[in-house]
């Protein structure tokens, strides 16, 4: 057996298992929990939340509508019924308060897949692949909504692997499997963090809320940073780290204000010096342009 190697192991050794894995554990519980709540209806007859991630109804009163689906529907056929409109408002409020792309890292059922791809990539030491501009997803988001407007149907939904995956799980069909396999292989072999980090328009949609949300990961103890780069290696959006981590001289940070940050908390877990923490503030002091 080799000694303790790898960032995760070193974090565990230094901080203990719990402090080195709690946010990952919390995220997996959240991801499974959301799907589990949807599945309680068909599997156990407990109808807490019905529908799927596109649009749902909780306890018969609280509607939620995914923002990309909502935008596509509005573009394709105008304002839908009140329930869908209120649902989109609820979701905008929810993710607006809780971090924007928290959807990506805490709810989206494709995230564990791309996570696994990234982990496997590390294990197999695959380093190559397409590193397209991370702004492509915003272009794709605009294209998808425009396309719905032009064709009158949400054309993206014929393809959207996020839709396929969540429907496949919640409606118990194998139809979502191709999306899971395709995205896994794409991230593994063709492009590192390719789907979530470069292409996914759903993530780009929630990133818009990330511009205004008060929930941030903050490099509060950045003076303790030893430049070990463990956070850079684990972060799916590493471009968001440096401004907060190294911006002290320029008066930037310590909050990670970039909308791309998924608020996953991997950096909090992995950092042996406990530089990062979740932070909640309504002030704009951390919100200077980076």
């Amino acid at each position, binding site marked *: 057996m080799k000694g303790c190697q790898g960032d995760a192991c070193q974090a565990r050794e230094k901080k203990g298992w719990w402090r080195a894995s709690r946010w990952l554990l919390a995220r997996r519980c959240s991801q499974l929990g959301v799907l589990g709540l949807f599945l309680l209806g068909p599997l156990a007859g407990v109808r807490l939340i019905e*529908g799927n991630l596109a*649009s749902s109804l909780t306890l018969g009163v609280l509607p939620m509508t995914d923002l990309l689906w*909502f935008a596509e529907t509005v573009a394709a*056929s105008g304002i*839908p019924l009140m329930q869908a409109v209120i649902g989109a408002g609820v979701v905008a409020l929810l993710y607006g308060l809780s971090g924007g792309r928290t959807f990506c890292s805490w709810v989206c059922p494709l995230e564990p897949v791309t996570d696994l791809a990234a982990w496997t990539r590390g294990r197999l030491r695959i380093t190559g692949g397409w590193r397209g501009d991370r702004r492509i997803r915003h272009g794709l988001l605009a294209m998808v909504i425009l396309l*719905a407007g032009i064709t009158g149907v949400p*054309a993206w939904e014929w393809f959207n692997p996020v839709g396929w995956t969540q*429907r496949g799980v919640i409606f118990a069909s194998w139809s979502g499997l191709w999306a899971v396999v395709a995205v896994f292989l794409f991230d593994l072999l063709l492009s590192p963090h390719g789907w979530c980090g470069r292409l996914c328009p759903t993530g780009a949609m929630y990133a818009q809320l990330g511009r205004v949300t008060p929930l941030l990961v903050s490099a509060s103890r950045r003076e303790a940073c030893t430049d070990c780069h463990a956070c850079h290696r684990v972060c799916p959006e590493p471009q968001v780290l*440096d401004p907060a981590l190294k911006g002290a001289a320029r008066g930037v940070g310590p909050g990670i204000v970039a909308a791309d940050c998924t608020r996953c908390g991997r950096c909090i877990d992995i950092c042996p010096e406990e530089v990062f923490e979740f932070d909640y503030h309504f002030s704009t002091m951390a919100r200077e342009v980076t």
Partner: protein
Amino acid sequence: MSATSDGGPRTVAITRRGLFEQGARGAVGLGLAGLALALGAGSARALPVWAIRPPGALTEEAFLGRCLRCGLCVRSCPYDILHLAEPGSGVAPGTPYFVGRDKPCEMCPEIPCVKACPSGALDPGLTDIAKARMGLAVLADQETCLAYLGLRCEVCFQVCPLLGKAITIENRLNVRSGKHVHFLPVVHAEHCTGCGKCEKGCVLQEAAIRVLPRTAVKGALGAHYRVGWEEKKKAGHALIPEPLSLPVRRPGEGP
């Protein structure tokens, strides 16, 4: 964002030409992807003939634009009749449908699927299930229909939820035997909801009566047509002078 995609330092000098090229590449790439999507989505726009939309569904084109693919209607159906379409099924992915021959619509008076729809893809204006127009039953094959063969069947007539309205039985002399009567089912489009009960009930190996999209079946007279006898009824008298009644002359009769 000033950093490169993975946070490393930018090594390529930014030039106007470079920026233009980058922008053009992005635009062309997205345009091509959009074209592929539009063509892919366009190829699956028509509903296959065996699939029926839930009650209150807008016209297929409008329905596809409105439906959120959320499955709330599917979950609300107390008879578990609705499915969410899977890839390769021919129905637009994620949209709800049912197959009349498998499990027809039970026509709940409360219409829970319409009430569940958050977007209006199922029209909330539909409150009377008898006014639903999911499709139209058509006696598609007279060559195998038992009634046309001269046998007593009338199952489609008997299982119709709008008994005696959407399907009636018309009698016609069986010219083959010369002494029997055909009991022929006749569908009336003004009452048929397209629930699929008749298609399910048809005793043949393959149903002779089928629910099809109304647009695939119904003719349209054209706005300029007037049916004379109805206009006459409306007006209370003929709209044109009654034809002259001329005397009948037969050969051999005097002038």
